[in-house]
């Protein structure tokens, strides 16, 4: 019998009613009295020197309150990068300045040059058209490899070249060289991980509201982590102390990483509101989002696998160019390094692994974390490569994977991480039971009878979630701690508010977190509410990304609830005139072991706030506890995915017929929500593999700047998915044994789909090593007819 409440149950989501009835409170739904509107004048060239910005005519236009340019931000800090990577020579990465409004140069299409604040948006837009900008266009740096050639135009004149860092990681050179020198077979693959735009359906919004009465600024913003924004903007950009700065992220319409980062528009509205002493609101259009939201992926890689004569993996070596775009976004530098290189061992016991990454500046929008962040790139390379090796060797791709699986845990990889638990054979067994491999030949024949090519592709994945142990990431260059925090406030009548550092923007924390607290206390879930998204209400937590909410913030919540239970037991012992050691808590009742004496939860909480009969000499009144939780390790979800496709050889069109995902997420608190997370990730992975591509031309013009040109997956592009999370190897180091599920679908799905298409084509007699994503009809057709 499935549970109907508590851990393991799937209660209906309590956030749903407000979203289903139009009562959500998204940032753009907030208007503040006296509000002004800002429109940013953005560069339409990729690279150029700003000779002058003449705002004279525009300033006199109707409704204009003030026009800002780069000059207004000369004494103001630039947007910081939160992670310093050290390159293979021990040098710090290059960190070019990132002004709020462009100063001297524009470096990508969309770089903001000026900002018009006006009484209405229409007036702001009209006035922006009257600003005269004189720019001398410079050659655009777009292709990463040519960006590194001697004599290339530089994106940042004050840097020696366009190389941000040259990073190397993993086994020592001799071990890797030896593996390749002694290999019986080497498989090599060149590939690109296509540039994507996260595209949460809610565009970004920022509303700055300065209150002169107490010198306090409030920023309402579409963020996954209000405290991170407060820290970065306050300490690094505007020089405002935390107690004068409040950051509110109310209902947020999806994030997928792109709402982690601190953006220029947030700093602008906060700054401008203080200057003009009125609220300033910015609402991104979708077109603006394409040229100002941080993009994702964009790696170009050569990867090689060495195998011995028995098909054991003996060595792996990668050489990647990672696009940073024109500026370093908040966590940009960490994505191709620590979030990517550390996962290159995958599910396999390859003894020697070496990862090389060159990060490159180009005249494109900044690139940063997008769902999976580094791990999809690692998984894609490795799982495409293993599939190619299986084909070259004429062995079964599942058997080759199984033969090389890590089976003993904990397992220390050659790339610095230690997997605590996992069972890769078990998830592969489950996957095989989900996909009817035996029946595939008949299905392929049936497709062939209709002139279609059918293919089946599989892959495995491993990811590192629950980011992250602060001391470890500190050594690796993170400029922040990555703990999280929760305050459990028990009210006099026993209801509870839990203030959490995690932020829910689709994940359903308001439903899931109370399941945990209510189960621990044995009370009704309806008595527990979650408070999140307002820096003035919640403790300093680091927010939601990297599938960390439950693993890290949930752990803090468990610790705080344990403190509540300990204190409540002391109060109950006093009320029951018993020894604290004898008090048991079950179903919301405190009882004395071995007796029928008990007090209810509500009696204890009331005593805490009306302490007439209370051990005041021993403990304080009240019942409120905070815990900060810093994880001991990452968590390591893993799984095996399969995709079945049909290819129309006449047109190159790929149809996804079936997608199966077998995951090990450790313990699961709410299966319904976990499955929903996987579904969403799968669609994003299918989108990457089949449809989505953020493209620039050689002049740095953004070709895919709207939904007309950037193909988002739609309902008729995807099938019903088969998902399973019944294989559970609990995380060994957090109290809930949870691993995180938010990114798995997006990490695990692209290679399965591409492997399936290549299976279809190669089984039909073609000899195609690889096709770069997205597998659009024209690319597939060209590969067939190439």
């Amino acid at each position, binding site marked *: 019998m499935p549970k109907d409440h508590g851990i393991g149950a799937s209660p209906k*989501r309590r956030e749903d009613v407000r*979203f289903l*009835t139009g009562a959500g409170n998204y940032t753009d739904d907030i208007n503040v009295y006296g509000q002004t509107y800002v429109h940013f004048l953005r560069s339409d060239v990729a690279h150029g020197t700003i000779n002058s910005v003449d705002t004279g005519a525009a300033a006199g236009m109707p409704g204009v309150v003030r026009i800002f340019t780069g000059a207004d931000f000369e004494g103001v800090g630039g947007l910081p990068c939160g992670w310093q990577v050290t390159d293979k020579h021990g040098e710090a990465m290059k960190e070019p300045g990132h002004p709020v409004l462009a100063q001297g140069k524009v470096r990508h299409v969309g770089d903001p040059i000026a900002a018009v604040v006006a009484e209405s948006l229409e007036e702001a837009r009209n006035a922006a058209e009257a600003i005269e900008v004189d720019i001398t266009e410079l050659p655009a740096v777009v292709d990463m490899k040519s960006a590194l050639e001697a004599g290339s135009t530089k994106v940042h004149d004050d840097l020696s070249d366009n190389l941000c860092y040259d990073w190397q990681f993993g086994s020592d050179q001799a071990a890797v060289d030896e593996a390749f020198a002694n290999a019986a077979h080497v498989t090599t693959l060149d590939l690109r991980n296509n540039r994507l735009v996260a595209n949460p359906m*809610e565009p970004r919004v920022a509303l700055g509201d300065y209150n002169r009465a107490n010198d306090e600024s409030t920023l309402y913003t579409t963020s996954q982590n209000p405290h991170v924004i407060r820290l970065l903007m306050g300490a690094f950009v505007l020089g405002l102390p935390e107690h004068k700065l409040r950051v509110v992220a109310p209902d947020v*319409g999806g994030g997928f990483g792109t709402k982690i980062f601190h953006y220029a528009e947030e700093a602008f509205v906060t700054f401008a509101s203080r200057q003009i002493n009125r609220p300033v609101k910015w609402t991104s*259009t979708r077109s603006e989002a394409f040229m100002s939201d941080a993009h994702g992926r964009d790696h170009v890689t050569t990867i090689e696998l060495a195998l011995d004569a028995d098909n054991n993996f003996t060595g792996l070596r990668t050489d990647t160019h990672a696009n940073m775009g024109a500026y370093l976004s908040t966590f940009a530098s960490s994505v191709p390094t620590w979030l990517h290189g550390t996962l290159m061992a995958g599910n396999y016991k390859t003894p020697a692994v070496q990862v090389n990454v060159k990060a490159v500046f180009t005249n494109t929008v900044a690139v940063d974390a997008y769902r999976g962040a580094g791990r999809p790139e690692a998984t894609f390379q490795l799982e495409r490569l293993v599939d190619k090796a299986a084909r070259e060797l004429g062995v079964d791709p599942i058997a080759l994977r199984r033969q090389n699986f890590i089976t003993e845990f904990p397992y220390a990889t050659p790339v610095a991480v230690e997997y605590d638990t996992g069972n890769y054979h078990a998830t592969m067994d489950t996957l095989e039971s989900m996909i009817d491999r035996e029946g595939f030949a008949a299905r392929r024949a049936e497709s062939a009878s209709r002139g279609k090519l059918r293919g089946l592709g599989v892959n495995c994945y491993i990811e590192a979630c629950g980011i992250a142990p602060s001391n470890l990431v500190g050594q690796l260059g993170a400029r922040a701690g990555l703990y999280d925090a929760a305050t459990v406030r028990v009210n006099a009548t026993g209801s509870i508010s839990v203030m959490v550092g995690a932020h829910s923007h689709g994940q359903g924390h308001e439903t899931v977190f109370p399941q945990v607290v209510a189960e621990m206390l044995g009370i009704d879930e309806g008595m527990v509410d979650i408070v999140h998204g307002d820096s003035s209400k919640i403790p300093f937590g680091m927010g939601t990304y990297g599938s960390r909410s439950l693993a890290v913030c949930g752990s803090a919540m468990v610790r705080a609830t344990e403190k509540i239970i300990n204190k409540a037991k002391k109060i109950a012992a006093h009320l029951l005139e018993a020894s604290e050691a004898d008090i048991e808590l079950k179903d919301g009742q405190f009882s004395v072991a071995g007796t029928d004496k008990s007090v209810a939860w509500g009696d204890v909480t009331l005593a805490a706030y009306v302490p007439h009969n209370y051990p005041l000499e021993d403990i304080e009144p009240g019942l409120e506890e905070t815990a900060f939780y810093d994880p001991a390790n990452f968590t390591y979800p893993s799984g095996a995915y399969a995709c079945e496709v049909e290819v129309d050889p006449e047109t190159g069109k790929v149809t996804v017929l079936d997608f199966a995902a077998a995951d090990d997420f450790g313990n699961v608190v709410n*299966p319904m929500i976990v*499955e929903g997370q996987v579904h969403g990730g799968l669609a994003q992975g299918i989108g990457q593999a089949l449809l989505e591509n953020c493209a620039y031309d050689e002049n740095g013009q953004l070709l895919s700047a709207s939904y007309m040109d950037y193909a988002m997956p739609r309902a008729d592009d995807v099938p*019903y998915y088969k998902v399973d999370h019944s294989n559970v190897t609990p995380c060994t180091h957090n109290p809930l044994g949870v691993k995180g599920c938010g990114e798995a679908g997006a990490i695990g799905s692209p290679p399965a789909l591409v492997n399936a298409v290549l299976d279809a084509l190669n089984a039909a007699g073609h000899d195609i090593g690889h096709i770069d994503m997205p597998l659009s009809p024209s690319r597939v057709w060209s590969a067939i007819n190439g």
Partner: protein
Amino acid sequence: MAEITLTVNGRSVTKSVKGNTLLVEFLREDLRLTGTHVGCDTSQCGACVVHVNGKDVKACTMFAVEADGAEVATIEGEAAPDGTLSAVQAAFQEHHGLQCGFCTPGMVMTATALLRDNPKPTEAEVRDYLEGNICRCTGYHNIVKAIMAASGQDVTSIAAE
């Protein structure tokens, strides 16, 4: 400025609007019905779908003045006055057809229109009808399932929850 009179969720409204005010802006800013969302500027996403004279319409594709005299229904009017959710809304909650909720009002209005015209659609018909509505969170699985369920069809056999 032009004065328009229309019915919104059963109530008559008279307001002055500019000729270039989009219906979605009028609903959100003038009437403060913020359940109707804006997700794009190329009429591609469907976050703004409302009903105009019983038909599902992208409210970013028409001007408010064009709705003069029309009956407009938005997400705020879908539940009964006592708060009881409509069949489509209830099915979305039951089958976890929403995550961040941003696409949800448009999805619900689109699905409601579909079921009005085609009370027992096939899965393919549902997916086809949602062509103009983008959801980035759910992967559509539970949205399609919810719409099938709202139409009274058995969805218990659909793989996974």
